[in-house]
C-alpha cells in the first residue's frame, strides 16, 4: 500500500485555495506546492486539478492571467481573490472543527464511554 493518502472528496478545493494563498502559481506549480506543503503525503491525479481550478475561478475565488514560467514557457497563473481569502478562512476553521471532532471521537476509550 502506498504511503500517500487519497484526498477526501471536497478537500481538493481547500488545498488549492491554500496553495494559491501562498503566492501566484500556474497549474503545475499548484500541484508541486500541494506536494511540498503536505510533504508528499497527498496523491492528486494531475489532470483533475484543472476542473477544480476552473470551478474556483468560475466562483470568483481565484483569478487567472497568462504569464511566463521560470523556464520561459507561457503558462496561466492563478492568484487568490479577496472572496477566495475569506472562503479559505471559513473553510480552514470549519475543517479544524471537523478534525478536532473526529479526533476526539476516535480517541474515545471504553472507560470514557463506560
Amino acid at each position: 500500500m502506498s504511503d500517500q493518502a487519497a484526498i477526501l472528496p471536497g478537500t481538493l478545493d481547500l488545498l488549492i485555495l491554500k496553495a494559491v494563498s501562498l503566492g501566484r502559481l500556474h497549474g503545475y506549480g499548484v500541484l508541486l506546492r500541494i506536494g511540498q506543503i503536505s510533504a508528499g503525503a497527498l496523491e492528486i491525479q494531475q489532470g483533475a486539478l484543472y476542473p477544480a481550478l476552473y470551478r474556483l475561478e468560475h466562483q470568483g475565488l481565484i483569478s487567472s492571467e497568462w504569464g511566463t514560467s521560470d523556464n520561459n514557457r507561457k503558462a496561466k497563473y492563478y492568484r487568490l481573490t479577496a472572496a477566495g481569502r475569506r472562503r479559505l478562512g471559513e473553510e480552514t476553521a470549519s475543517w479544524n472543527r471537523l478534525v478536532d471532532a473526529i479526533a476526539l471521537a476516535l480517541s474515545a476509550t471504553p472507560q470514557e464511554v463506560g
Partner: protein
Amino acid sequence: MISGIFARARSLWRGVSRRSDVDAEMEEEFRAHIELRTADLIRTGLAPDAAARQARIEFGRPERFKAEGGASRGLRRFDELGVSWLDFKLGFRMLVRYPGLTLVGGLAVAFAIWVGAGTFEFLGQVMNPRIPLAEGDRIVAIEVTSATDGRQTPRILHDYVDWRANLRSVTELGAYRSVERNLILESAHAEPADLAEVTASAFQIARVQPLFGRAIVADDESPASPPVLVLGWELWQRRFGGDPNVLGRTVQVGITPATIVGVMPQGFRFPISYEAWAPLRLNVLEYERGQGPAISVIGRLAPNATLDEAQTELTNLGRRAALDFPATHEHLRPRVMPLAKSWLDLSTGEALSLWSINLFIIMLLALVCSNVALLMFARAATRESEIAVRNAIGASRTRIVTQLFAEALVLGAVGASLGLAAAGFGLRWGLGIAATQFMDGAPLPFWFRSTLSPSTVLYVGMLAVLAAIIAGVLPALKVTRGIGTQLRQASAGGGGLRFGGVWTAVIVTQVALTVALPSTAFQLRKDANRIRTLDVGFPTQQYLSLRLEMDRDASSATSGDTSRAAFLALFAERKQEFERRLTNDPAVVDVTLAGRLPRMYHQWNQIEVDEGAVEPLDERGHRVSSTSVAEDYFEVLRTPLLSGRGFNSGDLSSGARVVLVNKPFVDDVLGGRNPIGRRIRYIANEDDRRPRDDGPWYEIVGVARDIGMTSGYGRAGIYHPMVPTEAYPVYLAVHVQGDPNAFEPQLRATAGEVDPTLRINELMPLDEVTGGEMKFYSFWFRLTLLISSIALLLSLAGIYAVMAFTVARRTREIGIRVALGASKRRVLASIFRRPLMQVGLGVLAGTFVTGLLAYGINRMEVSPRGAAMVAAYAVLMLAVCLLACIVPTTRALAVEPTEALRADG
C-alpha cells in the same frame, strides 16, 4: 455574494460567447503542464521520450478534463441546448428532401406571417404614427373643445392670435384650413384639387424645402400681395405633366387667378393630405371672438419643452381667456396634442380593441402552425428509429428537441421571408381599402406608408420563432416522449406513436374551415354581384353620374353675403343654368337631379306607417332608404310609375309633405297592400339613432319600380320631392347619346363656363357607381378565398400525412391480415374509418357554421338552391379529402405479406 454572482456571469458569458477561445486556452494550459512535468522528470534522470510518456500518463486523458472543465464553468447546459450550424444545415437539407412539406408548410407559415406583419404594421401606423419629418414627433396641434358638449370649436382665430403672442412652450405656431377648389388651367378643363390655405409659419413647420421655386412666405399673407400657389409633386405631375417651366404660370383657383411659385418634393402633403397650398389670409379685426373661418392650429414644441408643460401653459392661457371673455370662452378648453392625434384620437378602449386584432392574427398563426406541426410530427415519426438510435448513442432528449426546433426554424424563416417580402404589397392593398372604406376615397394622411418599420420586422422574427416552437418543439416533445423505451419497440417492428385527440381536433377544425370559408366567400360574391348586376330597368351605361358642388366663398365673392341661404340660392341658380346648358347640348338627351342615384349607397331610416304595416322582421323595425329627387327624375330614367302620381311643382310648398315609395317598400313594409293615401314618418336614422316620435307625417302618393335603392337593409325606399334651394350637394344623372366617357371633357367645360367655382366630383358612367363597394367586396372575397385555399391545402396535406403515417405504421399488420385471408374491403374499412370520421365531422361542423352565419345571423331565407350548393360543396370536400387517402391506401394493399413481416415499422 454579489462579486460571486458577477464572477459567475462573466465566466459564463466568456464561455458561451468565446467558446473556442476557452477550449484553446485549456489545451494550451494542459500542454504547459505536461511539458513542465516532462522537464522535471528529465531532471530526475529519465530519457526525454520516457519522461514525456510518463508525464502524459500521470496527467490522464485531457479530453475528459476539458469536458469537466466546461462543466465547472456551468457550460454543460449550453452544450446540450447549443444549436450548431450543423442543425441548420440539416434543416435546409430536410427542406430539400421533403419538398411537399416545405411547400405546404412554408406557404402556410408565409401566409400567416404576411397577414400578421401587415396587420401589425397598419395598426402600429394608426396607433403610434411616426411623422416622417425632421423632429416630426415634436409637431403638435392645438384644438379647443367645448366643456358643455365635448365638441371641437374650430372658430379660434382670436385664440390663435393670443397663443402666438403668449405661448412659450409651443413655437412656430401656424394655422391652416382645408378648401376644395377647382383648378382651372388655360388649356384644360377644371378639376377639383385638395387645397390647404396655410400661414407661412404653418408651412415652414415641416422644415421641407421646395423641389424648386419657393414656399409660402409671410408676405403672401397680406391681402395686397398677388395670390400665389405652391404645387405638390403629384398634382404637378398629374395636371402639368411635370412641366419644368411651371413657375410663373397663372392658374385659376376657383374664382381667383394665382401664380405658381413653387413645387414641393414627392410625398409632401403636409399637414395632413394636400395637393397644393395657397396663403391663408386672415384679418383678425374683421371678426368677433368665436367668429371667423374654421381653422386648425399647429406648431412645434419649443426646445426642451414637454407636451405636459405645453398643456399646463395652454390651460392657464385658457383660464385667462375665460376670465376676460366669459361669454364666449367660459366653457372652452384648449388642448395640445401630437399632430397625428388631431387626425385620429383613439380612446384607450378603442386602441385596446384595435390591438386585440393582433391576438386574432396570432391565433391564426397558431392554428396554421399546429397544422404544420402535424406534418412535422408525421415526418419526425418516420424518423423515429433514427431518433431512438441517436438517443441511444448519447444525444439527450433536449438535444434532439433542439435539432427538430432548428429544422422548424429554418422552415419558419423561409416562410417569414416570403411573408415579409409580400407584406409591403399587402399593406398597400390594405391602405387603399382603408381609404375607400373610412375616408370616402380621400387619401390617408401623409404619414401612412407602405413600408415596414423595424419593429414590425422584429415582430415577424418573433412570430417565426413562435411558429417554429409550435411546429417544431411540440411534435418533437411528443415524438421523444419516453424515448428510452422506444428503441426496443422500434427494433421490434411496432411503433409506439399514435395521433391523439389533438390532431383529430386540428383536422376537424381544418375541414370545417374549408367548408365554411368558401361558402362565406361566395355569399360575399353573391352580394357583390347582386349590387353590380342589379337590374334597375333602364340603360345605366348611357348615363353619366356626377356630384355637383360649389366653392363656399362663391356667394360672398359675388354678393358679399356670407350666409348659407345666400350660398344655397346661388348654387340653385348655377345648378339650374348648368342643367339648362347641358339639356341644350346636342349630345345630351336629358338631365335630372337627386340626392342619391340608383345603386349608390343610401342612408337607412327607421320609419313607422300610420296603419297597415306588417310586423317588422326584428326589433330593428322597418329600415328603408330615402332620397330626394327632381320632378322629372323617373321620366329621365325611363321608369314609369306603377301607380299613383309623380311629383309636381305644387309638392314643393312646405305644407305638401308627399312622398313616393318603391315596389319593395309596398312588398316588405305593407305586405303588398295598396300604399296610396297611407302616411309614414321617420323615427330614427343612420346618423341619429335616438328614436323620436314628433316628426311630420308624409302621405304616399305614388309607387315607383325598384331602380336600386340599397341601404344594407333591403331595397325598400322612399322618394321626396327635391327643393332646389335646399339640396346641397346634388347628384346629376346625364343621359348621353353615345359613349358617356367621351362626353366628360365637354361636361367639365360647360360647368367651367357656367361658373368656375362649380366643382364636379365622382364623374363616371352610372353603371360604375358601385366601384368603391365592389373594391371592398373583392378585397374580402379574395382574402377569404386565400384563407380557404391555405386551409384546404393544409387539411389535404395533413390528412395525407396522417394516412401515410398510419398505413406505414400498420404495414406489418395489414400484410399479416391480408396473408391470413382478410378481405380487402375489411382492411380498407379499418384504414378509412378514422379519416372518414374526421372529414365527416369537419364537413358537418362547417355546414353548421355556414348555416348559422347565413340564416341565423344574416337572416337570409333558406333557399333550396343555397342549401343544395352547400351540400354539393360538402360532398366535393369529402371526395377531395378521400383522394388524399388513396395513395397511401393503394400502397398498403399492394404490400406482399413477406415484405410486411420484414417491415420494421
